[in-house]
Each structure stands twice: as C-alpha cells, then as structure tokens.
C-alpha cells in the first residue's frame, strides 16, 4: 500500500518534469509543425546554467537561500531562453518554407552540436549539486511511510502554477492570441499584421523557459546531471507530448503525467529494466486506437 503510494508520488514528480519539457515540444509543433529535437538539450543546458549561477551567487555572497534560489532561477530562465531563441534563429528559421524533413535533420544536428559543445566545455563527467535542503513530509507510521520532500512538493506546485500561467497567457493576452492565430493560419496572421517571425521566436522562448524550470527543479531534486540527460528526457517528453496529442497544451501535461505515473508504477511494481519498453508500448497502444493522441484534434485531411 505504501509502496504504491510512494510510486504514485514519484510518478507525479516525474510526470511533472516530463510535462514541463513536453510543453516546449508541443508548442513548437503546434505553431510551425516541426519536432524540435534540440529541446532536450536546452533542458540539459539549463541544468548546467543553474548550477553555474548558483556557484556564482554563492561566490558573490548572497547568504539567504530563498533569495539566492530566486535570483538563480530567474537568471537560468533568462539565459536558457536566449539559447532557445538562438537555436531557432540559426537552425530553423532559414528552413521555414522547406520540406518537413529538413528542419528535422537540422534539429538532430543542433542536438548533437549542443551535447558536444557542453561536453567539450564542461567535461564529460557527472556533475553534482550538494543537497541544499532536507525537509520532508511524511505520512504513515515510523516503519512504513510515504514521503514527499519539500522540494518535491514545490516541484508539483511550480508545475501547476506554470501551467496555469501559460494557459492564461495563451488564452487571455494579446501575445497568446498572436500565438494562436499564427498556429491556425500563418499567412492570414501575417496579412492581419501579426509579426509571425517574432511570435514564433516567442514560442521558442516560452518553451525554453519551461524547460529551464524543469531543469532547475530536477537538478535541485536529484542533484546530479551530465551532458547526456537531455537526450533521454527529450525522447520521454516528446513521447508524452505525442501521447497527449501534439499541439495541445493540456495534452502535453496530461501525457507527461500519464507517462510519469505509468513508468514509475511499472518500475516499482514490475521491473525497472523494461520500464522504457512499457512506456513505448503504452504510446503505441494509445496511438493505434486514437492516432491523434489523447487530447489531440483529429487530423482533418484537406482535399
């Protein structure tokens, strides 16, 4: 019972992380119809940036932990957003009008570049962040319990808040309206005076920011990372985005949660080695019965 409960909590945490990264994939796909393979690497870079800025902030002598964390978080989001913007400008914008596969290869190339760039600059070994905070909530008896650390609770909270904020931005602000318009019909949006280039860059920036939040949270929670975490997380998050229906924001979150929960439950209750196999099998089963994903819009074939 408690094992199940613990796995559920682990699944929620994992799912939140996947969801945050999946948002980047789904928004980019929704607006320009391409899979941003380099998005996982943006997440990885944010983990490195977070740790670097944290060390910097410590050197500059900001003693109070919450203030240091807040400053570092904002810096990380800002710098990661610049990475997201740059990748789009260099690798995707020139390919805006071409076939579907060209941006994909470019994205794969960009992913390789970012991985190796970080590996060369920072070294190939695992990096570690010392545990900075230890509070836990515990439920149950002394011998059998379910625990969720304060940090993990914050992860869930931050994810919910981010999702809410993003949904509000997309649905209630002018920026969001521009995004939705560009997604529906880019030519018309251009004719109506929306600067689609800037809107698309904005979407990349938002996606990168979400990934940065995920990177910060995961580094803070698990403490160790290396230059390769982007690849694995990227594939999982992409799977989550597709599972939920690519192009749909709530779908990304839902897909993330389902993926995280099923992976965690499978790992805990059955077998850890094959949890990825299970995750993909789940994806295939969902797609066979609902080819557009859980919350996706059925693809209308224009004739």
């Amino acid at each position, binding site marked *: 019972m408690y094992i199940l409960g613990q796995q559920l909590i682990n699944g929620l945490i994992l799912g939140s992380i996947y969801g945050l990264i999946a948002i980047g994939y789904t928004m980019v796909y929704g607006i320009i119809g391409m899979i941003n393979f380099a998005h996982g690497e943006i997440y990885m870079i944010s983990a490195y940036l977070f740790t670097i800025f944290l060390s910097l902030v410590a050197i500059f002598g900001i003693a109070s932990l919450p203030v240091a964390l807040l400053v570092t978080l904002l810096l990380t989001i800002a710098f990661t957003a610049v990475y997201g913007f740059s990748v789009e400008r260099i690798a995707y914008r020139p390919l805006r009008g071409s076939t579907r596969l060209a941006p994909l290869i470019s994205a794969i190339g*960009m992913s390789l570049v970012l991985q190796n760039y970080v590996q060369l600059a920072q070294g190939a070994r695992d990096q570690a962040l010392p545990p900075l905070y230890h509070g836990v909530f515990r439920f149950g008896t002394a011998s059998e319990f379910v625990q969720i650390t304060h940090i993990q609770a914050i992860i869930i909270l931050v994810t919910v808040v981010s999702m809410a904020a993003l949904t509000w931005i997309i649905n209630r602000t002018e920026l969001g309206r521009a995004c939705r318009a560009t997604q529906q019909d880019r030519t018309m949006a251009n004719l109506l005076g929306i600067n689609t280039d800037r809107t698309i860059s904005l979407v990349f920036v938002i996606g990168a920011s979400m990934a940065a939040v995920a990177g910060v949270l995961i580094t803070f929670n698990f403490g160790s990372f290396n230059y390769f975490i982007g690849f694995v997380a990227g594939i999982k998050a992409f799977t989550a985005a597709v599972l939920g229906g690519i192009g749909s924001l709530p779908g990304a979150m839902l897909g993330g949660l389902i993926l995280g929960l099923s992976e965690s439950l499978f790992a805990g209750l059955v077998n850890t080695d094959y949890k990825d196999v299970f995750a993909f099998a789940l994806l295939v089963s969902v797609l066979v019965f609902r080819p557009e994903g859980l919350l996706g819009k059925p693809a209308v074939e224009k004739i």
Partner: protein
Amino acid sequence: MNVAQSLKDATVAALIAAVLFVPIVGLVLDGQDLVTHLPRAVILVAVVFGGRLLISMGVQTQLGRPLRHAAAALEQVWSRVGDVAGGKLAWFIAGLLLVLVAIPFLPSTTNYLIQILSLTLIYVLLGMGLNIVVGLAGLLDLGFVAFYAVGAYGYALLAAHLGLSFWASIPVAGLLAATFGCMLGFPVLRMHGDYLAIVTLGFGEIIRILLVNMVDFTGGPNGISAPRPTLFGLSFGRRPEAGEVAFHDFFGLDYDSSYRYIFVYLIILMFTVLAVWVFKRLREMPIGREWEALREDEVACKALGINHTTTKLSAFTLGATFGGIGGVFFAAMEGFLNPSSFTFLESAIILSIVVLGGMGSIFGVILAAVGITLLPELFREFEQYRMLVFGLAMVFVMVWRPTGLIRPGRRAFGVEGNGHGQ
C-alpha cells in the same frame, strides 16, 4: 555602405554570443567551485562579432558582389553535376566499381582503409534501405537501426545456436528483419508524419533496450561474438579451427591478415552493388511509383485505388530487409557485436544520409554515405571535435540545401521524334 547598421548587427550578435558562451564556456564547474576560462569565451564572442561584421559589410561592398556572383555560379555548376551524374549513372557506377575493386590490391592500402571502405559500403546499403522508406515512400522512420540490429544479432545468434554459416544467414537474417519490418508496419498504418516518427523511434529504442537487458540471450552490454565468413568452407584465420581448412594453406600462400579484410570487403561490395541495382529497379517498377505517390499525396493515392496498406507495408518490409542484410555484413566485418553500436545516433546518421543526399536519389545517397563515413576520418586528429563538427555540418548542409545535395529528379519517359503524337 551602412557601417553603422553593420556595427549594430555585429554588436547584437556579439551580445547574444556573450550570453551563450560566457557561462557555459567561460565558467567551468569543478566539484563545488567554478574554474574560469574566460579567455576562450571572449575569443568566441570576438569571432562572432568579427564574422557578423565581415558578412554584413562584405555583402554590401564592391568585394561582396563578385563573391556573390561566384557563389551563384558554383550553385549552377553543382546543379548541373547532379543532373549529369543522375543521367549517366551507369557510367559513373561502372567507373566507381573499377576503382573500388582495384583499391584493396594496391600496395599502399592498409587494412584500416579497407575497413573504412567496407563500413562506407555498408552505410550505402543501409542508405538504400532507408531510401525506400523515407526517400520514396515518405514514411518518416527514426528507428531504422532496429532492423540493422536484428540482422546483426540475428546472424550472431543463428550461428551460435543453429550453426548457420555466413552465406546461409544472409537470407535468413534478411527474412527476420523483414518480419520485424512488417511487425512495425502494422500498428503505424494509420499514423501520419510525426506520430510515425516517434513510434519508429520508440521501436528502435525498444530493440536496443531488449538487447541490453536480455543478457542470457544476447550477452547484454558485454556483447556477443559473430563468426567470420568463409569462402566455400575455407576460413581466413591464421590457424584454422578443427575441421576447417585455412585459405592460405589451400592456395599455398603465406598468411596475410589482409586476406580476411579484402574478402569481407569484396563480398560487401558485391552485395552493395546488387542492392543499388535492386533499388534502381524497384524505383522504376509500379511499386516504386506507388511509393512515390504515397509520399507526394496520400489522399490522391487512395483516390487512385492504390492499396494504402500493402504499399506502406511493402516499403517497411523491403527497407527492413536491406537493413538486416547490412547488419549481417557489419557483424561479419567486426566479429563482435555490442548494443552500443545500435543507438538512435545510428538511425539519425542513416536518416541524414538519405535526406542530405536527396530523397530517392541513388547518386546522392552514395555521395552522402561517403561524406558521412569518410569525412570524420579526415578529422581523426581532432578526435574530440568530431561529433561537434558533424552536427554543425548537418545543420549547415540542411540550411544551405534543404532538398538535399542532389535534387530528386523526376524520371519521365519521353516519346522520340514528333512530340505532338499521332
């Protein structure tokens, strides 16, 4: 010439470069501390500034114009090369074959070179396979490495458990890979574009995970050995196994390690030529037309009465067969298999070969396979930077020529003489 504007552009670029490079390149994590490497970050920013300034000003000045004319002229020449080579493909291949057959017998050729060439040929073979799935049929397959792995491990396991020889394994492993191709094809029939991509990616990863974890069956991360190929029962080792005759003993020659490499190389060459020929024929047959129709417009395809299901399945199955056979050769060449050779990166490389070369183009795929395999070898000394340069090259080539190096041409059949008909 607007120097102010150029300077402004360059400054903006340099600022962005500073944000990108100063933290990651300039401040290196070392345990709990930061080690500053600011000089190299500053150099990168300076290069960005200088480069942007040069490009911005160069395009505007007197110097810039002839350079742009030269660039345009080069483009023209390259397009002509593509057209000509595509048309005279037979001559090109004949000439290439002569060179390839001769190379191993030249005195200055090392075993290493023969191995590199063998690997290149395997990539051409794999490229042909994926060219069917992605290039002709337009089905975005990101998990092609799965069939490659099935072929390779299939050979090793068949030899270990059933005692099949190299030559017998080729069709069997090919069939095995074809079955997997079919297995992949069924669930994805209804999926389009990017959904197909992630499912095939997942398939590739599943195969790799199974290979790593089924330790009793596949040897797991420690790998499994594959037997060497024989020529009518003659083995190529220095000392023959019990019951085998050695190649060099049979022909009365001294043992030379290169015999084995040359033998494997020639076999691979033979099969690769066969594969290219098969691909060319398939492309011109009705089934090739159906694949290309599928790629261009699926709905029109269905409206014309083309059976969607069999077309897709045949593409997957045939592509997988090529992949599986490539796997057998890889196993025979290396002698030892390991799941780390069958990662997503391999799928990405093979996909790059097809897309960079030009979808559906034979010459393009050969060119791209050569480029992707041989160019990293030239950079051997800069071992560390190889993958970085490879990634940059991928981005650069795609931005420069999004349709691939060789424009996919439409092969049409014309009527001789009076074009107005009867």
